[in-house]
């Protein structure tokens, strides 16, 4: 088991790329979950040599904690520059935890049409699932205290690192 401080996001990205290569169909489209997942999808799209543009999806409009948290002041809009209907969708996220974000973005995805299939790939799986959701591929499995937040950061050169708060 890895601890959070051992995580090297660039090394893990390399492992994710290799893993995704095995599970992704040539006709699949990548959809990154805003914001960390969207950066990963953008880079994977390039490194996998997939045609067209990747999509970006936001959980905001389908979150189950809206009554407690309200609408955050962020401009994270869903942008899917392709038909969702009958497509093989690969959702990409930086950190998989309770699974609630994934539930919300699957609902969001269905507002655009009925996909042929949805697969999930993540950089880090930190356990702690509260819903029956699992990733087809993850580069690392870590244990973190419940109060700690782990998320991906990207510098101006496009290099990844982790933020732990």
């Amino acid at each position, binding site marked *: 088991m890895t601890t959070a401080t051992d995580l090297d996001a660039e090394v893990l990205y390399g492992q994710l790329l290799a893993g995704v290569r095995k599970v992704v169909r040539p006709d699949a489209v990548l959809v990154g979950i805003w914001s960390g997942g969207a950066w990963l999808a953008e880079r994977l799209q390039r490194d996998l040599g997939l045609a067209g543009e990747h999509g970006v999806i*936001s959980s*905001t*409009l*389908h979150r189950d904690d*809206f*009554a407690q*948290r*309200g*609408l955050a*002041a962020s*401009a*994270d*809009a*869903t942008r899917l520059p392709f038909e969702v209907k009958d497509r093989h969708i690969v959702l990409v996220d930086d950190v998989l935890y309770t699974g609630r974000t994934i539930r919300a973005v699957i*609902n969001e995805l*269905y*507002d*655009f*049409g009925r996909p042929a299939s949805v697969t999930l790939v993540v950089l880090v799986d930190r356990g702690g699932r509260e819903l029956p959701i699992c990733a087809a591929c993850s580069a690392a499995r870590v244990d973190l205290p419940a109060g700690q937040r782990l998320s991906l950061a990207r510098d101006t050169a496009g290099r990844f690192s982790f933020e732990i708060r």
Partner: protein
Amino acid sequence: MLERRNPQLNRHDELVHLLSIEGLPRAVVHHILDTAGTFLSVNEREVKKVPLLRGKSVFNLFFENSTRTRTTFEIAAKRLSADVINLDIARSSTAKGESLLDTIANLSAMHADMFVVRHSESGAPYLIAQHCAPHVHVVNAGDGRHAHPTQGLLDMYTIRHYKRDFTNLVVAVVGDIVHSRVARSDIHALTTLGVPEIRAVGPKTLVPGDLAEMGVRVCHDMGEGIRDADVIIMLRLQNERMSGAMLPSASEFFKTYGLTAEKLARAKPDAIVMHPGPINRGVEIDSSVADGNQSVILPQVTFGIAVRMAVMSIIAGNTP
């Protein structure tokens, strides 16, 4: 001394009611406009509905008639998955002598979560916001001559959509300003967003004298008023609010202040023409301008739904 708080904001400066644009922090206005941008795309999806207000009851309380505003609020609430109850109050309980606060108490007992209020008396939505249960949110859909904040916000969304930046604009508001709650909300919003030049254009009888104190330039000459303007907001001549001889006639008004292609040529070539609707063709605006390529009157209607979705979802997500 007691601190007088803006009744629309909670302790964290978050919006819990929308009563007026006056006194709203610029950040709150931008947050509403940004959120409206997200909802605009929802209206283009295959499923035009998101579940943010699922299980909530929105009561449209229109003490004064308005089919269009009520309909856009209804569409906005339904696209947020709320249950919408339309009450034609003008023809029901108040006609039987019930007081405003008794009506509100009764509707609160039906577990309302939000009131969208239009009233001919300025300040009525404030009174309701002060007396309703803490979990209930109030949106002002137009009160007397005072404010029409969602119209003001959708006008700002429209201007931002076409002009991007507010800080280099000349905006002319033209027509019956004295009776117009839209004009008042627009002027407060334009000031909040940093528009350097706001002009109020109209005859002396229809332009209030105190506008200069709000930093507005008053012009009684139409040509001077719209010269080099980036944005022209035409107002409806409000016959139903007109008492006494404020105007010689509608045709006289059109001759002097009606927007024709000829007058529009004095504004910047890329100026946009706005109108809160419903338009009186041949009274404040010529058909060729209303239907022309500088007119953004119909996009305003589309943006209005997204802006109302943004307002309702933001206030519903904030606790008092």
